[in-house]
């Protein structure tokens, strides 16, 4: 047993340190967790995501108190009880809806930041992989949550997405029925997606967020130039504490210096967030879902929420089997990014020759796919464009491999 100061006053600093090593924990997690100085506001997206997740959990708790997970009660519990009767129920619902949409906007910004600055390479592969895992988990969380109001879009999205698991020509309909617990989305389906949404998935997400943080520990956060920082030397300089040594140091502590910037960025973000909550929430709460679920009437247009559109569009232009394979490839392709990129450089895309063009092309393709995913495929122009961009997306993988294979190594200090 460790040495304990028997005279320490209960719950005093010394007393807590003896039992919990509080000072050490604070140092490890905050005041001596080093972040490079050379960063911009995009580095705050991680904490913005953490804050958004927190807001989603809190608003979700209040919704959970009045939500009724039955096919007869779900729609009215959301649209009547929560929106009309519960004090500030509308606020929690709007926050939850906007949060679910914005969390994906920030995830995409976070993800493209990582690609642009090459933050998935040279020891940072696990950061990327755990991050992609979180993307998949958040997608599952968003999808399961979308089922809960049990409107027309909930029902038909549930129908279409679970049908994907029939595996095209494999015709594994018994597997689809197993997933649904019924022939169509019904009570069993709603019950299990409710469980997934409010319990199992959040639990796994929290664990994965902790893991994502842990993966940052050894390789450290990347910086704007992709420079290899001598963290030990910089930390020593910072701890020296003079204005001069701190200027020379290339790092800052997570708390309070890095955090002060994060919180400013969060402030700007929450202005946008609450503007949407109060004045422009329709985009996150589709009108079609205000019609109650009706298994005998398909809505004229079925489309997923905007953050799923690009992968949905990869499915759409092909025949059933090819579409499914393309869709499956698209889901896992991004996971493999650190291994497809053969370049030795960790640097912003602007300094990486052809990679620069690859990056902006990828962004444009994904935005184009997102738009086409919602535009009516009955229009021949849109349908043709969908095919072109879906093929282009699939070719981006091999293209990256070739481009980076021939990428010249950037000399340090160049």
């Amino acid at each position: 047993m460790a040495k304990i100061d028997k005279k320490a006053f209960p719950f005093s600093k010394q007393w807590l340190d003896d039992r919990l090593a509080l000072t050490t924990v604070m140092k490890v997690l905050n005041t001596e967790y080093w972040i490079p100085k050379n960063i911009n506001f995009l580095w705050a997206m991680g904490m913005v995501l953490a804050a958004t997740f927190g807001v989603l959990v809190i608003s979700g708790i209040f919704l959970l108190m009045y939500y009724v997970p039955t096919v007869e009660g779900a729609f009215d519990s959301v649209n009547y009880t929560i929106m009309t009767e519960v004090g500030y129920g509308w606020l929690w619902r709007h926050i939850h809806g906007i949060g679910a949409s914005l969390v994906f906007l920030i995830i995409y910004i976070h993800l493209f930041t990582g690609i642009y600055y090459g933050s998935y390479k040279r020891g940072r592969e696990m950061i990327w992989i755990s991050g992609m895992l979180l993307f998949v988990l958040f997608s599952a969380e968003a999808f399961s949550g979308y089922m809960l109001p049990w409107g027309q879009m909930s029902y038909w999205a549930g129908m279409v997405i679970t049908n994907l698991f029939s595996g095209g020509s494999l015709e594994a309909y018994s597997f689809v029925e197993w997933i649904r617990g019924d022939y169509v989305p019904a009570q069993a389906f709603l019950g299990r997606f409710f469980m997934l949404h409010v319990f199992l998935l959040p639990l796994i997400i929290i664990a994965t967020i902790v893991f994502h943080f842990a993966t940052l520990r050894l390789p450290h956060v990347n910086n704007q130039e992709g420079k290899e920082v001598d963290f030990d030397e910089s930390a020593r300089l910072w701890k020296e504490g003079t204005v001069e040594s701190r200027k020379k140091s290339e790092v800052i502590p997570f708390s309070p210096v890095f955090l002060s910037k994060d919180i400013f960025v969060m402030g700007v973000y929450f202005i946008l967030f609450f503007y949407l909550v109060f004045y422009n929430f329709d985009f996150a709460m589709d009108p079609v879902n205000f019609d109650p679920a009706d298994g005998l009437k398909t809505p004229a247009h079925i489309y997923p929420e905007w953050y799923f559109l690009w992968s949905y569009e990869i499915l759409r232009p092909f025949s059933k089997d090819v579409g499914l394979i393309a869709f499956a490839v698209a889901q896992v392709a991004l996971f493999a990014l650190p291994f497809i990129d053969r370049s030795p450089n960790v640097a912003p895309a602007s300094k990486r020759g052809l990679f620069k063009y690859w990056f902006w092309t990828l962004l444009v393709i994904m935005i184009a796919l997102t738009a086409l995913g919602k535009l009516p495929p009955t229009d021949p122009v849109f349908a043709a464009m969908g095919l072109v961009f879906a093929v282009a997306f699939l070719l981006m993988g091999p293209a990256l491999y070739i481009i980076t294979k021939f990428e010249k190594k950037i000399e340090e200090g160049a």
Partner: protein
Amino acid sequence: MSTRRDFMGMALGGFTAVGAVGGFYAAKRTWDPLPSVKAAGSTIVDLSQAKEGEPMTEKWRGKPIFVLRKSADMPAHERDVVVKGVRYHVSIALCTHLGCIPAYKKASKTFFCACHGGVFDTSGINLPGLPPPSPLEIPPFAIEGNTLVLGSEGPEYLALKKNNLVV
């Protein structure tokens, strides 16, 4: 530098706390009983249904209510509710000891609680020497024609309350 820095940090923290208070207010309102629950808090009792000398049970805010139309041989009491010259005993049918529901015994003309043997007479008065500490409680009521509206406080109820007769 450090004092200034601390000041800004504290100002931000303090301001955030103000926002948190707003958030807690919204959360508190979310926990409040729903308007529909409150609206369902009144029950109308049709007194023409009451049979003389036999209590009927009504439900008000989830609790049972005794309404007993007194017969001539039942002693009058200042706790009685008089509607159109007829005397009624009205009370929440929960024993004032630990909240069990007493049963009416026709033979002895008393309300008997099986849990710990408490006994109340036809005016809801607890018999001495037994566990119940006080008479059966009278719920708030208002008289409207030949009906009682349980849940709203009419002048007759307020008069009883003023004389400390409702508990």
